[in-house]
Each structure stands twice: as structure tokens, then as C-alpha cells.
């Protein structure tokens, strides 16, 4: 059979989508595809165009490649513009005179940026924002400019403004309408957006109608407005809307709309049945769709129609969610409440500049529109409620008012959505399709993405798709994937057993026997922690070093500027005056910020990498050891002063705290471990908020376990009472080792307990009654860890090879110039952004 020849004019996002979809269809081999492209390259991701300014190359943006087209037998012509269309001869002609006949023709010519007919607009440095070549021109022009103006305060205009700002220009936005994003936002939303954007340093001028562009005095140009005011600028970017590229249709007799656009029916056919139009050039029901998702939908419909299917295009939702200049903005449905009788709820937070509006149907039951500025987290949920005509909850304001403490946000859960609800609008994936994929074995969001394509466009639907997936998994009775990551199909507990039982000592051995790939920042530190819990070898050993988080690798806690803090161990919070002096001396000598911590010790902040060894040398000389403040490890044992000094104290809490801290120091665990010992029931050491709490009573020690401060505080449970010193330590040994054995990655004891089947009762039976018969084993394992303890810092500074790691640069002795401090309350603190800029400028002056 002779192949049908399909010619696609324009290889933009939608034209390419059409080709890709046709290639994927079951009878792809019946078609010969030819595409003619005016641009010098095949389709690229125009939606992500602005990424070009943050360093992406044309290569990164490509949606396809010439090799791919060649492999698939798609012929293509680049740099060729179609200039003639002869429907009666079924052929098109290009500017270079090349003639191409077709059986079916697809026009996917997109649109062009509209430039208002202002005199002076054709001068150099007056540009638009649509193609990679445009961006190259903008970059070149920006190099010779200080001030830039964007004409148009819509979606694209603001994106362009961001680009100019990032190119270092003083940036202005000039808008004809009284507010920004007039199409998508209402008055209130526009105002909040404006104020946020102005705070970012972009100047906004609304209700300005540009009349003329003339030579400027201070800048290259002067823009004169209808109201007599003017604005000077070196370059101008027009972003005042788009116009469909319908020239071919218009000139060669196809139906076009009054205000432009190639008329199509529900099958995307133009007025000539074997000519289709899709994407931004097409006019459906008198509407142009200037977003990529509707274009993709049209591409699918056209393919379906050509291959004998029945899909129809019935309009598309134009809701949008974006980040403009870092400000979250979303608009859904009838955002401006144009529907007669529509009701509104408005939530406004003047301090954080958040604006949210719900537009409800006149009966108050259905959501018909919404505006979100400053916080668009409710977008997915609201969009679903709107698109699926779901009834809003009884008090609809809950949908936009921030959840108060402890209360979960009251969305309608994903379970309330119908199967047909569109979850991913970029690729038109329904809830049903995701559930289906889950049933077919896709159990991770990665698998969902590759099998359904959901989430692979703008990415806005990933959270929602994940919820749908998890809900479906739960329904199927499948445990939600508990693999630690893509490299190991095991839980942490399983890996722990594999390490123990197989006597495995290195990551390489474990991944070779039980995993795949190279590992990542999830499984490497996890395995490092397990190896440390089991064998307690020095973490900076060469085989183990590359597994450690930077904190463990440099044995210090990294701060936001890349500097480190130093927290020596002060067991039980007891410290001699001499040691205090030593700490003071070190802090002074190395200019460190010094603070008493919430864990009864002293933190020295702001150390640079290359200074760490010298600082530690001095601390070790003064009798200090590392405090493991950087590790998922035993941290502190807080104590109260106890019976030694306190008139109420019944036992020596300080002594016991020091004994406990000395015993367990260096133990690495799934998460950090904190202890406290109080000398009586007044509980000055807050032991009931710790992983392990000990309180003295007349009858001996009471042991509490699984308390937590932090993000979600939990009171510790009373575990045993009337204990002597020895039994207390025995129980703690067993408790800690059992936790190390069975907890999940980064699970504090509190959460572990809350998830432990059988709870406190079960735990008591394992630890106190030794129901599993593992008591002795757990104690033995703990003893091994205790015996293997060495101060990591001491071992490190006595090894010159290891000290090399602390060089800032391998090839220079300079210090890191990105680290800048200023003084506050007589100590250093990291400079904020503004201060850094000032500092750099001052330095440049000095060296100039």
C-alpha cells in the first residue's frame, strides 16, 4: 500500500507533538511525514525559554533531535518558510521555491508577538521575546544597556521583565491596562502582585499608552506616553500579546476569524477538509488558545482524526499557575467573577502579601473561578473542584484560609475526584489513567511519569498525581513503596540485617551484592550510618569517606554560607573554668561566633574549612573531644545539678549524665539521640522530652523513652521505675540497639514508637522480659560499639593525608571569598545579600 504523505508546516511545540503522537500510534508505518520549519532548529521547549538566561543552552531546550527524526524516517527542512499554499493542487511551496505535495496538510505555525504600531518601534534595541534568536538579540542588547523597559504587563511581559532584571538592567514594566496580568487576575490580585514585584526592584507603570519612541537624553530612547509623561530607556522589549500566524490561510482561501486565527472544527480541520490547523494559529469556536496544553490536545485530536479515530477538541481550560519573578500566581476559570450573580470570598494577608479569591456560582455551591497570588499551594485542589463541578465544602473559605495549628488542610481529598478528572493537563492524563497505571505495577512517581507522561510537562501536577497514586496503592492494599531509593529495593531495617548477617563492611560490597547503580545522597549516608552502628569504624576511613554527608565528612555542621560550626563535647553540661577559658581563647583567636546552646554546651560558629584542623588541635590539646553535633548520633546528655548541690536532689544526676554520655558517645543511629537526667521529680533537665530520660526518685531511677522536642513534641513514656545504675544502663543498651536495628531512615525514637506495632507494651516485653531472646545480643553489639570508640577529630588530625581534605582549594592558598562576615553585638555574623554586594563593590574599588 502506498503511504499517505503528511506535511506539517511549522516545527514548534505543537507541530512536533503532532509528529511524535503520530509516530507513536499503532499504524504509524502507513504515513510518510515531512515537516517544514522556518526556524534554524527543530522544536524546542518554548515554555522554558527563559531558562536560556539562567544558563540553559539551545541544546538543553530541544524537544527532539535530528537523529531521532532520521531514525523514525521523518523528513525535515530547516530554515525554510512556506510561502504558498495550493489547496486545489494539494501542495505547498517554500521561499526557496521547493514544492511539496501532500495528502494531508497540518498547519502548526504558532503565533508572533504583537508589536503595537508605535512610531519608532523599528529601531535597533526594540525587541520581542519568542525564539532563541530573540533571546540572543536581547542578551546582546542588554550588554550595551543600563535600563530596559518591557511593554506589556501580562504573563509573558513579566517573564521578560524577570529576564531583563537578571541581565542586570534597571527594569520597568509599562502596561496599558490599570493592572498587571489583566487577563488572569482581578483588581485585588493585580495589586498584591504589583506590590510584590515592585519590592523586587522592578518599576511598574500602569495605564500608560506609548505614543512615540524618540531619542533620549540620559538613555538611548525616550518613550512618550499619551498622558504627556515619559520614560527613558536603553532598550525596549515588546510583549503586548500574540497574534496567530494565519498568513497562509488568509492568502490562500481558508477560513480565518475576524480578529485572526485559522478556523477549525472539533476535529481540528480547517475549511478545507484535508488541511488541519493546530496550536496557537488555530481558532476554535472563536477562541485562540495561547498555552501549550490546549495545543497538545489539538495535536492528539488531529492525529486521531487522520488515523480514523473519533477524538474531538471541545475547548480547554485556561487556568494557569506560574512563578513570575519568584512570585506565585495562579488563576482559575472565571477569575474576575464576570458570571452574573457570582459570589466571592477574599482572603488577604497584608503582612506576607498573600491574596486569594474564590469565585462561587450564584447558589454558592460550585467553584467557578479563583485567583491566588503569593501562595498558590491550593491551586491543584481548587482546579479539580472547579473542573469537576464538585460541591464546595460547607464553609468554602476553608479552602483558602491557612490551616490553623494541628488541623489538616480541608481540601476535598483525591478520593472525592471522579475517575475522569484531569490530573495532568499538559498531557491530558486523567485520575483513572493514573490509577490504571498503578494497577499495572507503576508504584513510584517516576514510573507513573514514564508510563502516563503525567507530570513531565510543566510539572505542576506532580503533587496531585502522587496523592492519587498513594491513595490507589493504599486501596490495593499495597504498602506504599518503602525502598530506600532507586539503588536498593529494601527498607532500612532490611539493609541493616543484610549488613549484620553478611558481615558487610563497605558500601561497595553492599551495593554489589544487594543493590544497583552507584548510589546517591539518600542511600550513601544511610548505609554509612548502618555500618557505623554495626562496626563503628572511623567514618573518615577512605572507603567510608565518600558516603558521608558533608557534616560527617568534615566533622562539623555546615551553615548557610558554607562555613562550619564546632561543638566540643561537654558531657552532662559540666565544664571546668580552664576549659571555658580554652574555648574562649579559641573563639577569639579564630574569630568565631560563640553561643551557649540549648543542649548545655558551647557552639563556635563561622569556621572556614581550612581552619577546622587547627581549631581542633587546640581544643584537643585543652582536653576536648568531638561532640558529634554534626552526626545522626548521640548528642548530649543534659543534666540538672542534682543531689550534690541542690537541696531537693535525691541522686547524683550530673554523675549519671556524664556516665551515660561517656558510655554512648559516638553511637550512630537512624537519627540523633538526646538524653537527660534530672535529680528529682521537679525535672529541671526536661528528661521527659528526650529520647532517653532518666529521673531520680527515692527508690532509684525512673526511665522514660521516646520523648521529643523539636517539630512535633512528644512526651516520653514511662518505661521502668526503681532501677539501680546497672539495670538502668542495661535497659538503655538494649533500647538503643533495638532502635538502631529496626527504625527507618531519619526516624526519631518518638516516631519509631508511634509506628511500632504493639507500642510501649511490646517494647517493654522485648527489652525487659527479653521476649525475643535478643537481649544479650543487643548488649554485646552495644559493647562492641563502645569498645571501638575513638574521637574522630583526634584520629584525623594525626593523619596528614586526611588533613588534605580541609584545603579550601586544591590549587591555591586563597580563602573562599564568598564567605563574608559583618559584626553585630561585638561578634561576627554572616553578611546578608545586600551587605555582600556592598562588600564586593568596596573591594573592587580598592583593587581598581
Amino acid at each position, binding site marked *: 500500500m502506498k503511504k499517505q504523505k503528511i506535511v506539517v508546516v511549522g516545527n514548534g511545540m505543537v507541530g512536533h507533538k503532532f509528529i511524535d503522537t503520530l509516530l507513536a500510534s499503532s499504524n504509524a508505518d502507513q504515513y510518510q511525514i515531512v515537516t517544514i520549519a522556518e526556524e534554524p532548529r527543530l522544536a524546542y521547549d518554548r515554555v522554558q525559554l527563559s531558562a536560556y538566561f539562567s544558563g540553559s543552552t539551545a541544546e538543553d531546550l530541544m524537544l527532539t533531535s535530528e537523529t531521532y527524526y532520521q531514525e523514525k524516517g521523518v523528513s525535515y527542512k530547516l530554515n525554510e518558510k512556506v510561502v504558498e499554499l495550493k489547496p486545489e493542487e494539494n501542495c505547498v511551496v517554500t521561499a526557496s521555491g521547493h514544492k511539496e505535495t501532500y495528502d494531508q496538510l497540518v498547519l502548526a505555525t504558532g503565533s508572533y508577538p504583537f508589536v503595537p504600531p508605535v512610531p519608532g518601534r523599528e529601531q535597533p534595541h526594540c525587541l520581542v521575546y519568542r525564539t532563541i534568536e530573540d533571546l540572543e538579540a536581547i542578551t546582546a542588547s542588554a550588554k550595551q544597556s543600563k535600563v530596559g523597559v518591557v511593554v506589556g504587563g501580562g504573563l509573558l511581559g513579566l517573564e521578560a521583565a524577570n529576564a531583563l532584571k537578571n541581565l542586570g538592567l534597571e527594569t520597568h514594566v509599562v502596561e496599558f491596562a490599570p493592572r498587571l496580568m489583566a487577563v488572569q487576575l482581578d483588581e485585588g490580585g493585580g495589586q498584591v502582585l504589583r506590590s510584590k514585584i515592585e519590592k523586587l526592584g522592578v518599576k511598574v507603570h500602569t495605564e500608560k499608552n506609548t505614543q512615540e519612541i524618540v531619542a533620549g537624553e540620559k538613555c538611548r530612547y525616550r518613550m512618550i506616553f499619551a498622558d504627556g509623561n515619559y520614560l527613558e530607556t536603553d532598550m525596549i522589549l515588546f510583549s503586548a500579546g500574540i497574534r496567530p500566524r494565519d498568513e497562509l490561510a488568509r492568502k490562500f482561501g481558508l477560513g480565518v476569524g475576524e480578529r485572526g486565527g485559522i478556523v477549525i472544527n472539533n476535529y481540528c480541520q480547517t475549511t478545507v477538509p484535508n488541511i488541519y490547523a493546530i496550536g496557537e494559529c488555530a481558532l476554535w469556536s472563536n477562541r485562540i488558545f495561547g498555552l501549550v496544553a490546549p495545543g497538545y490536545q489539538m495535536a492528539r485530536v488531529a492525529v486521531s482524526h487522520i488515523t480514523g479515530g473519533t477524538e474531538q477538541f471541545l475547548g480547554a481550560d485556561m487556568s494557569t499557575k506560574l512563578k513570575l519573578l519568584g512570585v506565585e500566581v495562579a488563576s482559575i476559570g472565571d477569575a474576575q467573577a464576570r458570571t452574573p450573580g457570582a459570589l466571592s470570598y477574599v482572603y488577604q494577608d497584608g503582612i506576607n502579601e498573600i491574596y486569594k479569591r474564590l469565585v462561587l456560582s450564584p447558589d454558592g455551591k460550585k467553584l467557578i473561578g479563583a485567583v491566588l497570588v503569593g501562595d498558590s499551594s491550593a491551586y491543584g485542589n481548587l482546579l479539580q473542584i472547579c473542573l469537576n463541578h464538585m460541591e464546595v465544602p460547607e464553609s468554602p473559605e476553608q479552602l483558602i484560609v491557612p490551616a490553623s495549628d494541628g488541623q489538616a488542610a480541608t481540601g476535598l481529598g483525591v478520593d472525592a475526584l471522579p475517575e475522569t478528572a484531569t490530573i495532568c493537563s499538559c498531557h491530558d492524563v486523567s485520575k483513572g489513567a493514573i490509577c490504571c497505571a498503578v494497577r499495572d505495577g507503576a508504584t513510584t512517581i517516576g514510573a507513573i511519569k514514564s508510563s502516563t507522561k503525567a507530570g513531565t510537562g510543566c510539572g505542576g501536577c506532580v503533587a496531585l498525581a502522587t496523592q492519587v497514586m498513594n491513595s490507589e496503592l493504599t486501596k490495593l492494599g499495597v504498602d506504599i513503596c518503602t525502598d530506600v531509593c532507586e539503588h536498593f529495593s529494601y527498607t532500612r531495617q532490611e539493609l541493616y540485617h543484610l549488613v549484620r548477617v553478611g558481615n558487610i563492611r563497605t558500601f561497595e560490597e553492599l551495593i554489589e551484592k544487594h543493590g544497583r547503580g552507584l548510589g546517591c545522597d539518600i542511600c550513601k549516608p544511610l548505609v554509612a550510618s548502618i555500618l557505623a552502628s554495626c562496626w563503628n569504624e572511623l567514618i573518615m576511613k577512605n572507603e567510608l569517606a565518600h558516603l558521608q554527608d558533608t557534616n560527617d565528612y568534615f566533622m562539623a555542621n555546615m551553615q548557610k*554560607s558554607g562555613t562550619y560550626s564546632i561543638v566540643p563535647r561537654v558531657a552532662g553540661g559540666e565544664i571546668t573554668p580552664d576549659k571555658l577559658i580554652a574555648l574562649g581563647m579559641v573563639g577569639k583567636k579564630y574569630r568565631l561566633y560563640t553561643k551557649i546552646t540549648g543542649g548545655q554546651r558551647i557552639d563556635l560558629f563561622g569556621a572556614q574549612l581550612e581552619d577546622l584542623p587547627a581549631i581542633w588541635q587546640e581544643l584537643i590539646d585543652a582536653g576536648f573531644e568531638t561532640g558529634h553535633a554534626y552526626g545522626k548520633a548521640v548528642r548530649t546528655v543534659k543534666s540538672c545539678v542534682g543531689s550534690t548541690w541542690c537541696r531537693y536532689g535525691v541522686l547524683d544526676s550530673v554523675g549519671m549524665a556524664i556516665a551515660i554520655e561517656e558510655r554512648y558517645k559516638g553511637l550512630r543511629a537512624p537519627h540523633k539521640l538526646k538524653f537527660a537526667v534530672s535529680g528529682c521529680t521537679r525535672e529541671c533537665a526536661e528528661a521527659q522530652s528526650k529520647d532517653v530520660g532518666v529521673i531520680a526518685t527515692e527508690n532509684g531511677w525512673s526511665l522514660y523513652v521516646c520523648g521529643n522536642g523539636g517539630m512535633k513534641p512528644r512526651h516520653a513514656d514511662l518505661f521502668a521505675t526503681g532501677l539501680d545504675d546497672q539495670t538502668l544502663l542495661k535497659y538503655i543498651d538494649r533500647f538503643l540497639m533495638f532502635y538502631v536495628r529496626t527504625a527507618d531512615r531519619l526516624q526519631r525514637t518518638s516516631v519509631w514508637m508511634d509506628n511500632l506495632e504493639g507500642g510501649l507494651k511490646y517494647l517493654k516485653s522485648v527489652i525487659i522480659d527479653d521476649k525475643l531472646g535478643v537481649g544479650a545480643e543487643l548488649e554485646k553489639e552495644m559493647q562492641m560499639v563502645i569498645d571501638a570508640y575513638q574521637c574522630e577529630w583526634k584520629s584525623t588530625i594525626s593523619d596528614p593525608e586526611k588533613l588534605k581534605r580541609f584545603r579550601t*582549594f586544591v590549587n*591555591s592558598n586563597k580563602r573562599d571569598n564568598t564567605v563574608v562576615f559583618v559584626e553585630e553585638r561585638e561578634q561576627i555574623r554572616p553578611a546578608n545579600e545586600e551587605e555582600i554586594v556592598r562588600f564586593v563593590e568596596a573591594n573592587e574599588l580598592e583593587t581598581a
Partner: protein
Amino acid sequence: MDICDSSDVLPNLGVRALVNDEQIAIYRVQGQLYAIGSIDPFSGAAVLSRGIVGDVKGQLVVASPIYKQHFNLATGVCLEEPSVRVKSYPVREIAGRVQVLV
């Protein structure tokens, strides 16, 4: 630009180099050298040489130690936000020395 001795770049452990004011992170993974900008665009701190390297979805990556975004070692593109990237530099090993083209 000559940077350092081959033995200075250990497998899976990044080092940092300073070349005309640019901070460059150099890694050795599966025997191959990679070089990308060391300044983490999300925090502004020069920390990428101090991240954990590995592979994620078939790409060789380093994870920023500050907020944990992943960067492709070959291209510098951020996996979580592909519009963000750090520079990548050609790097080679000649006669026991590591050299980066800047």
C-alpha cells in the same frame, strides 16, 4: 589550566579549585573526571565540591549539601529545576596532572 596532581582527586570525593576567581568543583566518578561550578545557585554558598556524588535516574549527579538539589555532573543542569544550572567545564588528565579548560 593546570590544577593539581591526579592523586589529589579521589574517587567520588569532590575537590575545589580556584581559577581566575571562579570556584570549580572537580570529581572523579567511575574513573572519569568532571568539573562544574562549585557555587550552589540555591544558597549562594560555594559548596558543590562538598556534596555526595552518585547516580539518579541514570544521570551522574552531585547533591548540594545545603538544600539537597541534584546537579548533573556532565552538564551542570539541576534535576529538580532544569532551568537552573551551574557551569560545566571540560576537564582532562595528562601526565598525572588534572587540567580544566576555563
